[in-house]
């Protein structure tokens, strides 16, 4: 039975009505909207900074190894995340599912209602979209380029 322990960074916003269980570490500037569920059932969950976790998102860690979520991700309404590692700047759109042991790189987009297979390592800059999900392309290098 994992001990209940929350470490919440500064400027993070955790709304009422969120369900949090187990050992959770939330970075600074992260926002948890109401009705989201962070369940560190078997192992701890470490969430980075400046993430947005919207309503009805379920983040579960069913493995004893910690689930590490990077910075600046957006978890849109109703998604379900069970992977082993999530990088930075990803967008997981509404009702998407990240299953099993998959790990997500940086700058990925998992489209609405799409899901990953179990045990995949998704490289950086991947976009999963479409009706028969698992149709993937590489985006051009994502992110913002600054003028020097």
């Amino acid at each position, binding site marked *: 039975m994992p001990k209940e322990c929350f470490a919440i960074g500064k400027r993070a916003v955790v709304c009422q009505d969120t369900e949090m269980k187990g050992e959770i570490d939330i970075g600074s500037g992260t926002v948890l909207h109401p009705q989201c569920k962070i369940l560190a059932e078997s192992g701890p969950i470490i969430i980075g900074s400046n993430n947005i976790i919207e*309503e009805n998102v379920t983040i579960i860690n069913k493995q004893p190894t910690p689930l590490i979520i990077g910075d600046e991700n957006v978890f849109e309404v109703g998604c379900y995340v069970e992977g082993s590692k999530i990088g930075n700047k990803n967008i997981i759109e*509404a009702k998407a599912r990240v299953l099993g042991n998959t790990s997500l790189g940086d700058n990925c987009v998992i489209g609405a209602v799409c899901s990953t297979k179990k045990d995949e390592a998704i490289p950086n800059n991947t976009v999963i979209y479409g009706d028969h999900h698992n149709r993937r392309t590489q985006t051009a290098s994502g992110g913002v380029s600054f003028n020097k």
Partner: protein
Amino acid sequence: MEPPIVYYPRSEYIETDTGNKVSRKSVICGSQNIILGGKTIIQTDCVIRGDLRRTGGGHAVVVAIGRYCLLAKGSIIRPPYKTYKGYYPMKIGDHVTIGEGSIVEAATIGSFVHIGKNCVIGRFAIIKDCCRIEDNTVIPPNTVVPSFSIYEGSPGMFVDELPECVQDLYEAKTKDYYSKFQSKDS
């Protein structure tokens, strides 16, 4: 083929003077910023985010819902947002049915609209009057769904046209559902 009478335990719903029936198990954030037209039903596990608003006074109404609407179980209504600009107010018309588990982030929804189950309506979508969105549709952000159309699939595409009588059809359907949604002392 008449729909059956649906009973709900009286203690589970709040009924207002204007005939709105709101489940106590729904999550209504920022209820002072939400307007319900009247005779609207909000079922269990619905989430309405009336607390997502721009700072700085101005609009006081974040979510405006019309009359005879139905928000089925588990639906989520939240206003759309633009980065660096904040959340925009959202307006839903009369006689709108939103199916179970649907996520609605649209900017406006017209009247006489039927949205199926498990739909995802993207940000800033505009759904005009008298439309039908089939089950499991994903409407991409910024889409404009024209009147009298049926959208289906992911991404949502125009599949069929609706006849002009659909206005009377949906009006009768929503009024009928409201009258059959009755409380029972359990």
